[in-house]
């Protein structure tokens, strides 16, 4: 009985093993979509919670934030191109007089940009107070202007650094004053107060308007420098890269 029972048991065990294996595999296969569904359901719950949190903690709608992100991203790239353009122009200038002319043009642009930033921020403040725009729209626009303002600030820094290397008489002839340039830089920095920086951060993170990290030494295009230009390229290149990251003339206009 024992032996037969064992023999019967062995056959039964084989079949039982086959059935169990099948059940385990079927269960495993069935669990895949169930698990996926559960994960999706969990994710859905999490998303709902996030939405609730977002609504509670953040008055900016996703679309409004995306608008701000697009504006900031564009401004930063524009600043980077402008920075490099300024560096190349100075590096290509064949004389101190030519460099001073480039700085003078740049300062005119910086002043215009500062006025524009100021006017835009005032207009935005009014629109927010009047209820013409939502808090989210306001924040998105402020973030973009903050990035542009940072470009202007660095442009002033770069122009000041370049001017600082030029003979005073050359600067005086053109009415360029290094201290006045530093004042422009400070004005750009202080425009809108610390609130604008916080708003920009809430839209696009901590590094809004910071110069883009990169490996760039301005020099004459095509590598056909004159002696002066070659010297200027080397000197200004180091200065530009180390100190003046991001400044520029904002002349690479973005297409609407």
């Amino acid at each position, binding site marked *: 009985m024992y032996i037969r029972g064992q023999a019967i048991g062995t*056959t039964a065990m*084989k*079949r039982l093993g*086959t059935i169990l294996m*099948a059940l385990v*595999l*079927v269960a495993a*296969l*069935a669990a*895949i*979509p169930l698990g996926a569904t559960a994960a999706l359901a969990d*994710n859905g719950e*999490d*998303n709902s919670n*996030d*939405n609730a949190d*977002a609504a509670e903690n*953040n008055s*900016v*709608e*996703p*679309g*409004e*934030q*995306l*608008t701000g*992100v*697009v504006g*900031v*991203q*564009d401004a*930063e*790239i524009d600043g*980077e*191109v*402008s*920075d*490099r*353009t300024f560096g*190349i*122009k100075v590096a*290509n200038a064949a004389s101190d007089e030519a460099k001073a002319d480039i700085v003078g043009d740049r300062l005119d642009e910086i002043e215009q940009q500062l006025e524009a930033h100021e006017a835009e921020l005032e207009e935005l403040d009014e629109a927010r107070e009047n209820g013409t725009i*939502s808090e989210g729209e306001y924040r*998105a626009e402020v973030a973009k202007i903050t990035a542009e303002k940072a470009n202007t600030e660095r442009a002033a820094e770069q122009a000041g650094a370049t001017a600082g290397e030029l003979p005073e008489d050359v600067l005086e002839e053109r009415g360029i004053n290094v201290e006045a340039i530093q004042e422009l830089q400070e004005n750009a920095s202080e425009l809108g107060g610390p609130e604008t920086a916080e708003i920009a951060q809430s839209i*696009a*993170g901590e*590094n809004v308007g910071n110069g*883009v*990290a*990169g*490996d*760039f030494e*301005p020099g004459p*295009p095509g590598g056909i420098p004159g002696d002066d230009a070659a010297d200027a390229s080397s000197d200004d290149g180091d200065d530009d890269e180390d100190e003046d990251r991001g400044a520029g003339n904002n*002349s*690479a*206009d*973005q*297409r*609407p």
Partner: protein
Amino acid sequence: MYSRLVVAIVAVVLAGSLVVTPAAGATAVENTDEPMVHVAVDSDGDATVSLVSVYDLTDDDEQAAFESVAEDEEAQGDMRDRFADRMESVAENAGYEGEDVIDDSSVEIHSEEGHGVVTLSVSWGSLAEIDGETLVLTEPFASGFELDRQLVITGPDGTAIESASHDPDVDDGAHVSWDAGTDLDGFELTISLEDSESDTVTETESEDDEETADEVPGFGIGAALVALVAILGIGARLTG
């Protein structure tokens, strides 16, 4: 005999799975000289979101400056990372969560005479919601997104736009677009998956299996179970 048969059947199953797996993968924006936000939606709801910016380069110095950016991998990496971080923040604000929601960020920069183009892209997981045989796209375009450039949306190959909350300015079958300045508040776009290419591929490759779900790569769970039962049945006969 048993093991050879099992190996053969498993090989057939695996080969079949590979053959009929839909060729998913959102197509990044094609080379364009027009500023736009481009969204290429896959049949699984994932999408590639691209921001295309175009800069007029008015002189040789600007051209050289732009080309220096195009050759500067470090600068491009910084731009790309910032864009990815920011899009991740937008995704979180829109209620998407998870490390992989925003992935595969990239930057492409090229210039031609007189203008330069910067394209920043991210892959956005489950941007569009799958609702039966349709994909529904809403956020982040439905809540205060102000278009300063075109919004272009491309569906999976062979799909059709079923409905749109806002009449598109262009609908050529392959894509739909809205011009700059369009108010997209309450935006919702529904794409029908019934005629998607993934279905076509499945039907072509597996003529006897007309109801293969396009959401699941390969034969699907049902077919796998049938194959499994067949294997076990044959195995039981051979061993029994």
